[in-house]
C-alpha cells in the first residue's frame, strides 16, 4: 500500500514540477548552476572510470581469445559494443545515481530539514518547480556526458590493446568500425535520456518528501541511490526488450 502511495506521490510531484513556473531570469540562473553542479562536476569521475573500464574490457576480451582463427579485430569490436550498448549508458548512470542522485537528495533534504523549502512556500514560490525543474533541464545535457564516456571508453580500450601488445592499432580500429549499426546508437541515447529523467526526479522526490532530521537525510540519500539504481536497471531491461529484441 505504501509503495502505491509513493508512486502516486511521485507522479503528483511531476505534475507540480511543471506547474506555476518560477520567474524566467531566476530559472535561467538556476539551470546554469545545476549544469555546473550535476554535469560539469561529474565529467572528471566519468572520464576516469570510462577510460580504465574501456581498457579492462579490451584486455579481458584479448585474454579470452585463445583460438587463432578469431581475428584480432574482435577486441576493438567487443570493446565498442560493450561500451556503447551497456557500459556508457547503464554503468555510468548507476555511478551517477551514487554521485548526482545522493547529492540531489541530500541538498533538497537538508533544505527540508532547515525549513528552507517552507520559506519558499511561504513566499508563494512553487518550490518543486524552483528546485526540481532546473535539475531536469540540466540533466538533458547528460547524453553529452555519455558521448564523452563512449569516446574515452573506446580510447581506453585502444590504449590497453595496442600498448599492452594484444592487438595492432589497425586491427583494433578495423574492429571498432566493423558491422556498425547506427540504430544501436539511437537505442543507447534513448535509454540515456530515460535514465537522465530518473536521475533528476527520483532523488528529488526522496529529498523533497523526507521527514525528520539529519539522520533521515542520510537514510534518504541511501534510499535514493537504491531506488534510482533499481529503476535504471528495470527500465534498461524494458527498453532493451522493446527496442532490440
Amino acid at each position, binding site marked *: 500500500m505504501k509503495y502505491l502511495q509513493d508512486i502516486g506521490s511521485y507522479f503528483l510531484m511531476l505534475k507540480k514540477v511543471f506547474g506555476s513556473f518560477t520567474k524566467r531570469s531566476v530559472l535561467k540562473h538556476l539551470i546554469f548552476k545545476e549544469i555546473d553542479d550535476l554535469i560539469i562536476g561529474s565529467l572528471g569521475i566519468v572520464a576516469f572510470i570510462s577510460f580504465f573500464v574501456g581498457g579492462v574490457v579490451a584486455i579481458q576480451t584479448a585474454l579470452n581469445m585463445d583460438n587463432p582463427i578469431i581475428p584480432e579485430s574482435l577486441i576493438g569490436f567487443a570493446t565498442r559494443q560493450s561500451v556503447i550498448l551497456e557500459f556508457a549508458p547503464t554503468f555510468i548512470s548507476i555511478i551517477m545515481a551514487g554521485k548526482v542522485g545522493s547529492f540531489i537528495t541530500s541538498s533538497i533534504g537538508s533544505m527540508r530539514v532547515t*525549513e528552507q523549502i517552507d520559506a519558499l512556500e511561504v513566499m508563494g514560490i512553487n518550490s518543486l518547480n524552483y528546485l526540481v525543474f532546473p535539475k531536469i533541464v540540466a540533466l538533458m545535457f547528460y547524453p553529452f556526458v555519455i558521448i564523452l564516456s563512449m569516446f574515452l571508453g573506446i580510447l581506453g580500450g585502444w590504449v590497453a590493446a595496442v600498448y599492452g601488445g594484444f592487438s595492432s592499432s589497425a586491427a583494433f580500429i578495423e574492429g571498432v568500425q566493423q558491422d556498425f549499426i547506427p540504430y544501436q546508437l539511437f537505442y543507447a541515447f534513448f535509454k540515456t535520456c530515460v535514465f537522465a529523467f530518473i536521475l533528476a526526479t527520483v532523488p528529488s522526490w526522496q529529498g523533497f518528501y523526507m521527514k525528520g532530521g539529519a539522520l533521515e537525510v542520510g537514510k534518504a540519500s541511501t534510499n535514493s541511490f537504491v531506488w534510482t539504481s533499481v529503476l535504471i536497471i528495470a527500465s534498461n531491461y524494458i527498453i532493451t526488450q522493446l527496442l532490440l529484441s
Partner: protein
Amino acid sequence: MIKVEDVHKSFGDEEILKGITTKFDKGKTNLIIGQSGSGKTVLLKCLIGLFKPEQGRIYYEENAIQDMDDEQQRKLREEIGMLFQGGALFDSMNIEENVMFPLRMFTKQKKSDMVARVNEVLKRVNLENVNKKFPAEISGGMQKRVSIARAIVNKPKFLFCDEPNSGLDPKTATLIDTLIQEITHEYDITTVVVTHDMNSVMEIGEKVVLLKHGKLVWQGTNQEIFKTDNEDVTSFVYSSDLFKKIREVQLKEG
C-alpha cells in the same frame, strides 16, 4: 488585521487545534504563547497556509484565505514576511542574495536598486559589511537578523515569527524582540510571534494569546497577564523560578 474563526486542525486521530477564535491587530506585536505541544506552531502554519485547517476560517483583512484561489493565495504570500525558528536562510546564497531573494522573485527592479534596498534593510537590522558572507559564516543571532531583513525587504503587510529568540543568549534575544517590535510600529504591519519565552511576553506582548492543549485559554495584554487570576495563565507564567520569586515579592507587597 488577521481574524481566526473556530479553526480546527488534526493529524491522524489527534486533534491539535480545537476551535481557535481570535484576532491579531494591525500595528501591534501579537504573541501566541503556550507550552511545547500546545499547538502554537501548528496555528502559525495554518495562518501562513502551510497547513490547511479542517474547519474554521482565517481572514486577512476582510478576505478569507479559504475562499482564495491559488493565484490570490500566491499574491497574498507576497505580502507575508516570515522569520523561521532556525532562520531558514538559503545555504547556497550569500547574505546579500538571501535578502535580495524576494525582490528578485517578485519585482522588476534594477539590480542597483535592489542592492540599495538590501543595504537599507541590513542597516535597519544593525548589520553592515556582511553582504558577501554566507549564512554558515555568521552567528545565530546575525542569521536571525538577516532573516528579519529578508522578511521585511519587500515591505510586507504581515510578519510572522516562529520562536525568534530560541537558541540565543538573553542579550541577543532582547535585541531581536526589540527589533521585531520597532519594525512592527515603523511599517505599521500585523505581526504574529510564536514564543514560550516570558521575557518576550514582558517586552513586546501588546496582545498575548495563550494556548493549552490546542485550546485558546486566555487573551489580553502583557500588563494584564500579571493581574489575571486565570489558573492556566498563572501556571504558565510562574512556572519559572525567576517569575515565581517575582510573584512572591508581589504577593508580599500586596
